[in-house]
């Protein structure tokens, strides 16, 4: 009888043992590479940061940043200037929960050259310990927002994002006979009554926020993927960066509609202008380079799929020859709508530069 129990115990132990174990990683053929990261914008100095790749296994280490590389800039094939290093400063007031060691202390920037649309910028970066790397991007031309219309609309209450949304309709014309890539973002400056101000009852907290995400839309251009079988079975990545192409609207005028959710922002309808509350909303249409589009799209896809059993991992796009990272550009046009007045004389404003949407980290 005892033997029977022993057999049973052994059988159960073997059957339900953990199917996970640590194995040795073979790193013989792997050599570190230089990393270049930089998005350039029209009428701005060109700036990048340079770092290196690090092996994944082992004790967690911060990234190594390189501040002694030689970075040469070529504009339309002609050498223009050598980038110089500069100290990157951070406003740690709101972000002090992220350690400083994770960020580059120094970057490289041009002293005179500002990015212009239609021009091609190439960087040649050399360092004695690494292969010389090259990267190139062309700054796309600005696509102008022709008009913007807004209405408030109540969304289906069974939807988890239910409530009053601001529906924005944006009109623009896609340049014909060229491949165009876009991104939609918005910035908000929101002033709401400071309910903790029990003294004056008149102060307004101003939240200064940039939103790269958080747009809800069923527009076929913004969300061209149709709902299909695998969407239901496995899901698909969100359009995290609000990217779209001009493929379906080549050369045409187009009206794009999307909702801005009140989930992260006081409802447009609920702003009490009589108390000094206000909302200033700036919608920005970015015309991005193909590199930028592929990079952002693959970052989003890789975050979604890379831990997915069913999918081949997505390698993030890079246009850095002999290295990795991204060197890409964008130009932009924007339109602003406002409810309420800002600033109003006599009101005490307390500004909180949130700078980005921090409630939910995008990847």
């Amino acid at each position, binding site marked *: 009888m005892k033997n029977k129990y022993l057999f049973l115990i052994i059988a159960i132990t073997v059957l339900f043992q953990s199917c*996970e174990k640590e194995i040795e990683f073979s790193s013989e053929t792997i050599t570190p590479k230089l990393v270049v990261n930089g998005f350039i914008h029209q009428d701005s100095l060109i700036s990048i940061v340079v770092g290196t790749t690090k092996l994944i296994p082992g004790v967690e280490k911060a990234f190594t940043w390189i501040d002694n590389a030689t970075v040469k800039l070529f504009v339309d094939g002609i050498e223009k200037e050598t980038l110089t290093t500069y100290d990157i400063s951070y406003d740690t007031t709101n972000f002090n929960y992220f350690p400083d060691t994770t960020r580059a202390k120094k970057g490289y920037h041009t002293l005179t050259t500002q990015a212009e649309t239609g021009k091609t910028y190439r960087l040649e970066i050399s360092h004695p310990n690494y292969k010389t790397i090259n990267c190139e991007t062309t700054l796309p031309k600005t696509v102008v927002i022709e008009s913007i219309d807004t209405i408030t609309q109540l*969304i289906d209450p069974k939807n988890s994002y239910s409530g009053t949304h601001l529906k924005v309709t944006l009109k623009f014309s896609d340049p014909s006979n060229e491949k165009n890539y876009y991104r939609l973002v918005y910035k908000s400056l929101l002033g709401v009554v400071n309910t903790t101000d029990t003294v004056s009852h008149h102060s307004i907290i101003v939240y200064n926020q940039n939103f790269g995400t958080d747009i809800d839309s069923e527009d076929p251009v913004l969300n061209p993927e149709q709902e299909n079988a695998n969407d239901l079975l496995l899901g698909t990545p969100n359009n995290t960066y609000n990217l779209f192409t001009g493929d379906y609207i080549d050369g045409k005028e187009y009206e794009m509609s999307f909702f801005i959710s009140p989930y992260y922002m006081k409802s447009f309808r609920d702003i009490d202008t009589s108390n000094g509350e206000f909302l200033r909303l700036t919608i920005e249409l970015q015309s991005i380079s193909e590199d930028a589009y592929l990079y952002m799209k693959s970052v989003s896809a890789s975050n979604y799929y890379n831990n997915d059993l069913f999918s081949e991992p997505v390698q993030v796009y890079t246009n850095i020859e002999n290295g990795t990272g991204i060197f890409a550009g964008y130009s932009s046009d924007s339109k602003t709508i406002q409810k309420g007045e800002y600033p109003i004389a006599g009101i005490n404003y307390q500004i909180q530069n949130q700078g980005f949407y921090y409630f939910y980290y995008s990847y």
Partner: protein
Amino acid sequence: MKKNILSCLLILLTLNLFGQRVTISGYITDKQSGERLISASVYEKNTLQGTTANNYGFYSISLPAGKRTLIISFVGYKTQTFELELNQDITLNIPLELMASELGEITVIGNKVNKVEETQMSSIDVQVQKLQKIPVILGEADVLKVIQLLPGVQTGTEGTSGIYVRGGGPDQNLFLLDGVPVYNASHLLGFFSVFNPDAVKTIKLYKGGFPARFGGRLSSVVDISMKDGNMKELKGNFSIGIISSKLSLEGPIVKDKTSFMLSARRTYLDLLSKPFFWYFNSKNDANVNGGAYFHDFNLKVNHIFNERSRLYLSGYLGKDKGFGYTSDEYNYLDETNQEAITNKSKTDFGLGWGNNIASLRWNYLLSNKLFSNTTLTYSRYRFQVDSDYRYENVTKKTKTEDSFKYYSGIEDWTAKIDFDFFPTPSHDIKFGASYTNHLFSPGVSRLKFEGSSDIVLGIDTTFGNRDIYANEISSFIEDDITITDHLKINAGLHLSDFMVDNETFIRIQPRLSIRLKATKNWSLKASYSRMAQHVHLLTTSGINLPTDLWLPVTKKFEPPISDQVAIGTAINFPKSIELTIEGFYKTMNNLIEYKEGASFMGSATNWENKVEKGKGWSYGAEFMLEKKIGKTTGWIAYTWSKTERQFENLNFGKPFPAKYDRRHDVSIVITHEFNKKVDMSGTWVYGTGNAVTLAVMKYPKATIPYTDFAYYSSDGLDDYGGRNNYRMPAYHRLDLGINFHKEKKHGTRTLSFSVYNVYNRQNPFMLMWGSKGGEYAYDPNTGQYIEITPYKTVLKQFSLFTLIPSISYSFKF
């Protein structure tokens, strides 16, 4: 003049004017069941001329008149010898009797041909009866899982039945069930194949040297024929296993005239999962349920009108179903906090897929040298997803319903006619033509919103991809020519013409196989074959998902073409031991792979923008030592191979290993009969680790304006260093099975025990980065936590199936 010479040659070919010749023809059958035996050998002792029975057991041989000794043999059956005085054409139907094994037990070996004799190379006949004895996961015998144990065949994900032949992809295998293509050969995401072993008569795998009668896929043909049904008496078999049960019946409707075969099986994972849901629901106060199962039926009826004419009707119906539902009821106060609101919601989800296959085949003997076969076939694969969400505000009496349906599939109607022509013993000519109408339905969705709520609009819309019709005409001719007793060739041509969307793709596919017999027991072989494929499979993953879509070729993505050369040798040793060694080199063009960052995910919309065109190549050597009869039977197979792909826009244009590229593959399969009552079998497999795309380095992510922190980069992005850049540890396992047979009053009872992965090897299924360490202890002196072990990132391997015992019961009558 030229015309006359041609006429004379034709007469010579057909009449063979080297003396008067007479033709002996007929059918070779199993004496007990009346089942026709494929590839049985017919040989004349004095003239040393011979032939083999075709796929319908028909043979025809023309011999010089006079006294002749005809020897009919088939492995596993008693050889029969006929002394004949030939002076006119005769019909000789030959029933062969099963050979009793040394232990007195009847051992059926299945169709087996002499590897040294036949021109065909790179093909393997799977012994159906042995298949039942080979231990497999959960004790469920499976045709494709046995094929996975053959040289030149790589497996996909562990436990699944996907096959990768000589560097080809999962879409490059043509599965034929009674001559009808099967588009999705998987049940339960690939854990079972659709071919029920109880219904199968013969299985033949072609990896190269393809005869001209086959076409349509680049890498392999798995030709499976269903049992015709016993013409003599009613026979049956039923079995009960851990996750499925099966029942098979076969017998005469009119003795020796009409017979039937019926086989059915069903899995019961849905029933087995019920207790788990019950436990979950009781613990979590939830109402969730779900499950998955499949069932399938094979049916075949055949009728012999007369010696010349026979009709077969065969069909397969298979259905997989997965389902789930949740329901919920909750209450809340309304916005004014005045009224309690009651809401009910219910979600139903279901998916189903399956193949329907039918064929109507008419064998007609036009003359004793010309056998015809006219066939009408139908093949349909369909996949469907339904999702339904119902929401009811009981208090306010409002209802909304969202429903979504999606279906995709492919449907073929085919008419074909083919002939076997035996003009002389030196020629076995096969020719024929077929027409297929394809209907591709690459994903149509129906979305419906209905509601009484004031904010929901009624929507009922259908969207997706249009149906695509395509027509395919193909024809072939092949001749198995005996040039001398030592030299035989099989030369053929397959011509295909595929028409879709006003485009026509004509592909000429030459085939050639040569056999040089050095001695009675040793031959050398070589072959060349070109294959073309007119369909692409859009698939996202390594496992068989029912959402995988078949689509026709397009102008941009033309038919993939493969060219394969192979050389090899076959040697017969005493005691029925055969050795085959082959080397191959194969190139493949117009292959498709997904663009990096692109995903298909069940939609064919703009699929051409999401894939890249490239090429691949594979080369290797295969070795197989097989013992076919005796107390101990089995094989040892070894494959060395290398498979790469190259796409201009993938992996920076550099070649990369294909997903199932493996340098070494070994399988050892042994079955041993101790006595009439007990037999045992074992399988050991070894394979080089799969190539996987594993992140090896990290690098800082760029600051994406408006979204990320300025230069924030604590985590970073993964750098892979290339597609399929990393090798998993090697795969190996041992499976053992033992069968106990007992004669009962009405039949034989078999109790089978098997253990999968006996030594409990944790084989790699997936690699993933994990962590260890990072332990801290509180130091009361300083009041701080001190790190005891540093936090480290380590590579972790996940395994799927460790030791799994199983049991099944079957009864054969």
